[in-house]
Each structure stands twice: as structure tokens, then as C-alpha cells.
């Protein structure tokens, strides 16, 4: 078996799968159940002044028969007194000394409040702290969570205050409800963060009931925006992790989360620069035991790749991610339809004809059978036909060797600028 153990800014855990700060980590009972099931770490549900919650808190977005494609919640941070949580953290850590327990924290943005909670929480032996600058609902209205996480200066300052007294690594959890997450990530680094984590949930309204016109969820007929997570947000989260991972000034480890449902997404996040992942929605949907498949799948993947340690995959894809202007404009792929596999549903033809570049012809073969054929010279390689095709192997996108040298948009613009400003002797 490969070495799955993780070291994120000094926080060690037996595997890279942590439960995110959320309902699954509300109590010692739950976290201990999670560790028994195999989770490597848990970020305790955010500690702070205990709040009051409403009833009717979660909603899911189903899509085309898939349950919980997205998940929305309006639950706030812990509603239990700090001492109760601290006692359970202490007991859990004592029972599971090799598992990582990270305390998520949220207090009003003052130095005194941060100093107070950091000291109290560290006294019970947590392995690290995660500053919650991300929750988008409820607490944000009170100037905490996403409200302070959207202001780089506040992120930096509060991180600094936590770091002034912290003895354990400080992770700063960032909100995605911002135009460019690298601004706040950099602020966290400037404030002394040992790591950043992302993403917290995205502002959302799960739906509106067509009969009652009530929002989903609603509390006595009234709704408020919640935080969106689950499989639907993975691409957004993955991009934010990648943007931070490739940013030269964000030189701290990243704990990745947002739609991680299996070992596959975990590997994607880690390849894109995350040192381990956090999971919530998938555990809420399927229970703690999903971690067994995650561990097994990750181990098999590493074995297939001939890798000894999960840490070796961290960041392997980061250099493959760049700005659009650095992509090769002359690279070309075209669609190839395998008519032996094709079922002639014509979805590709319709998609191409109606919404893309009109390059899939409906023809007859020598025997008079219906076939579909791509005019390669007109195919722009958009991939749409292969995306809408319901049959595996019926459409392949293949590289088209056009013999052209690579040329990026940035190179092109520089060349045009140079042509206009100097006497270029251009002969073919």
C-alpha cells in the first residue's frame, strides 16, 4: 500500500481525507464515528459565540435524476457553548492522537476576540486552526465569515491577530464569493497564514416552489440566501485552487474542497495543488463510510501510477494551467465519428447544426445506411458533439496534425505590434 499520510503545514494525518467544518463535525460523537470509519482528519464545526439556528435548513438541487447534484444550507456555526465543544475535542484527540483535529474559528473582527478563542482552543490540543472567513449566510450579516473574508485587509489583519498567539498552524478558509480569490489568499499569506483552504460555500438560492411560490428552503414562508456546495461546485473550486497554486505569492499549502465526492475528485484537487482535501456534502449524502472507497481508490491510483506517496502527486498539474493567452492557437482537434458504434440518434448533428459550426453531415453509405460524417476542414474542435453523444466510443476527438508551429495569442499580439513598429522583412 502506498503511503497516504499527509503533512499540511505541519498538520499530520493518516490520509488526505478530512471532513470539512460543517454539520458532520458538530460533535465528538460524530468526529469519533468518522475517525472509526477511516477519515484522516476533521475540521470541527466552526466555534464561536453559540448561535441560534432556524428549522428547515438544507435543500438539494437534483438534476436529471441525480440526487444532490448541488446542496444548499442556511445553517450557521456551532450552537453549542465553547466549553462543550472543547471538552469533546479534548476527549476525541486523546482517543485518536494520530488523527488531525483542526478547529474552525469565527469571531468578531477584533484582536481581543481572536486572541481569546485561539488560546482557549489550543489549550485542548488541536492540531491546527482554520479561520472561517467564508460562511456566506447569517454570520456575514453580522460582519463575520464571508463579510470579512471579502475584504483583503480584514483577512490579513485577522490572520495576523490569530497568528500573534497561535502555537499551531493557522489555515485561512476563503470565500468563493469574490471576483478573484487570489487577492484574499495573498492577504492571508501576508497575514502569516501557514495554509489556506478553499472553497467555502457559494451564495445560493436552491429554488422556488412553483405552487406556493415559497423559496426552497423556507422558514415559515420566508427564505434567505444560503451556501451552495456539492458536486456542482467542483469546477469552480478546482479553478480557485489552481489559480492560487500557480500564483507566485501564494506560497503556502492549500487544503482543497468543494464537490469532492470520491477519490477521483480528491486526486484532481491534489494534482492541481491541494495538499489534501476536505469533504462534506458527499458524507452528508452517503455517510462516513464513503471514505473506505476513497482510500482504496486513491491507493489503487497511486499503485497504477507507480507512486509511493500521496504527497508526490501534489501540484503535478499546476504547470499545465495557465492564462488563455498562453494557449496554442494552432493546436487542432477534430471530431471522428465511429459509424460502427454510432446509433444514429443524430444528437451530434443537431448540436453542431443548431449551436456550433455546422460540420456534421447526414449521409448514406454505399449500402444506403444512414451515417454521420464530420467535415474535418470545418470542424473547430469544440467537443460539443462528443459531449452530447450518449454512446461511449461513438465520437472521438482526435488531434489533427496540421503541421503548423505553436503560436499563442500573446506571441501573436507581440508579433503584430512588432510588425507595425519596425521594418520587418516578411517573406514566406
Amino acid at each position: 500500500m502506498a503511503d497516504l499520510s499527509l503533512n499540511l503545514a505541519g498538520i499530520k494525518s493518516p490520509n488526505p481525507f478530512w471532513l470539512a467544518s460543517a454539520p458532520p463535525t458538530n460533535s465528538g460523537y460524530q468526529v469519533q464515528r468518522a475517525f472509526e470509519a477511516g477519515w484522516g482528519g476533521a475540521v470541527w464545526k466552526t466555534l464561536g459565540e453559540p448561535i441560534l439556528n432556524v428549522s428547515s435548513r438544507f435543500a438539494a438541487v437534483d438534476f436529471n435524476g441525480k440526487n444532490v447534484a448541488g446542496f444548499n444550507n442556511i445553517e450557521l456555526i456551532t450552537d453549542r457553548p465553547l466549553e462543550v465543544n472543547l471538552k469533546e475535542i479534548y476527549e476525541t484527540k486523546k482517543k485518536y492522537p494520530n488523527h488531525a483535529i483542526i478547529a474552525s474559528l469565527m469571531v468578531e473582527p477584533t484582536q481581543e476576540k481572536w486572541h481569546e478563542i485561539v488560546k482557549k482552543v489550543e489549550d485542548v490540543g488541536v492540531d491546527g486552526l482554520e479561520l472561517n472567513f467564508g460562511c456566506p449566510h447569517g454570520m456575514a450579516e453580522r460582519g463575520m465569515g464571508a463579510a470579512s473574508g471579502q475584504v483583503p485587509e480584514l483577512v490579513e489583519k485577522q490572520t495576523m491577530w490569530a497568528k500573534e498567539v497561535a502555537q499551531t498552524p493557522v489555515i485561512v478558509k476563503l470565500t468563493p464569493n469574490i471576483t478573484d480569490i487570489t487577492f484574499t489568499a495573498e492577504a492571508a499569506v501576508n497575514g502569516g497564514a501557514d495554509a489556506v483552504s478553499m472553497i467555502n460555500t457559494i451564495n445560493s438560492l436552491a429554488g422556488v416552489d412553483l405552487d406556493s411560490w415559497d423559496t426552497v428552503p423556507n422558514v415559515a414562508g420566508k427564505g434567505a440566501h444560503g451556501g451552495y456546495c456539492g458536486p456542482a461546485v467542483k469546477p469552480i473550486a478546482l479553478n480557485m485552487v489552481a489559480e492560487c497554486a500557480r500564483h507566485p505569492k501564494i506560497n503556502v499549502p492549500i487544503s482543497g474542497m468543494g464537490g469532492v465526492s470520491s477519490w477521483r475528485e480528491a486526486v484532481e484537487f491534489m494534482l492541481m495543488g491541494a495538499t489534501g482535501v476536505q469533504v462534506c456534502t458527499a458524507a452528508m449524502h452517503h455517510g462516513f463510510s464513503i471514505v473506505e472507497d476513497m482510500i482504496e481508490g486513491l491507493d489503487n491510483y497511486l499503485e497504477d501510477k507507480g507512486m509511493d506517496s500521496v504527497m508526490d502527486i501534489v501540484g503535478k498539474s499546476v504547470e499545465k494551467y495557465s492564462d488563455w493567452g498562453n494557449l496554442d492557437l494552432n493546436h487542432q482537434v477534430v471530431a471522428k465519428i465511429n459509424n460502427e458504434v454510432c446509433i444514429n440518434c443524430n444528437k451530434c448533428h443537431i448540436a453542431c447544426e443548431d449551436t456550433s459550426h455546422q460540420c456534421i453531415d447526414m449521409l448514406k453509405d454505399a449500402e444506403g445506411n444512414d451515417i454521420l460524417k464530420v467535415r474535418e476542414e470545418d470542424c473547430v474542435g469544440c467537443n460539443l458533439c462528443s459531449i452530447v453523444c450518449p454512446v461511449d466510443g461513438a465520437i472521438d476527438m482526435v488531434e489533427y496534425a496540421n503541421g503548423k508551429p505553436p503560436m499563442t495569442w500573446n506571441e501573436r499580439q507581440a508579433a503584430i505590434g512588432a510588425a507595425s513598429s519596425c521594418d520587418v522583412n516578411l517573406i514566406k
Partner: protein
Amino acid sequence: MSDHREFEAEREKIDFLLEKGYVIKGVTENLSGAFLEFEYKGNEHDQPGKERLHILHPDSRKYFSTILVQQQKKQGVK
């Protein structure tokens, strides 16, 4: 005319001028596409000349700029 044939027609016009010895002296791009300014310095047999091409097709715009990039690389233009 198919999209590809539009490109081929524009590429032929570019190639024609380049093969006659014209050089691209400038590129102006705007909402209408790209305008290429060609110039021929002439020799003992031919008079100098100027030509202008309006390039519409995206593949043609990739085509002339690929040539431009390659030539500048060869010439060491920074």
C-alpha cells in the same frame, strides 16, 4: 461557399502577394477583422507597390500571424 473555402480563398490572396515578394508592413485589427498592409520594394524588373488585404476568416488571421511570428523569430525581432 463553406467556411473552409472562405479561408482558402483568403489564404491564396496572402500567399499570392508573399510569393510576389511583398512583405507585410502593418496589421490593423478592428471590429471588421484584420487589414494587412503589404509593400513591395521593387527590383530592376518590377516597380515598387503597395497592397491592402481585408482578412475576415479566423483561420486566415491565424495563418498570417503564424507566418509573422515565425519570420520574426527567424529575424530575432523582439
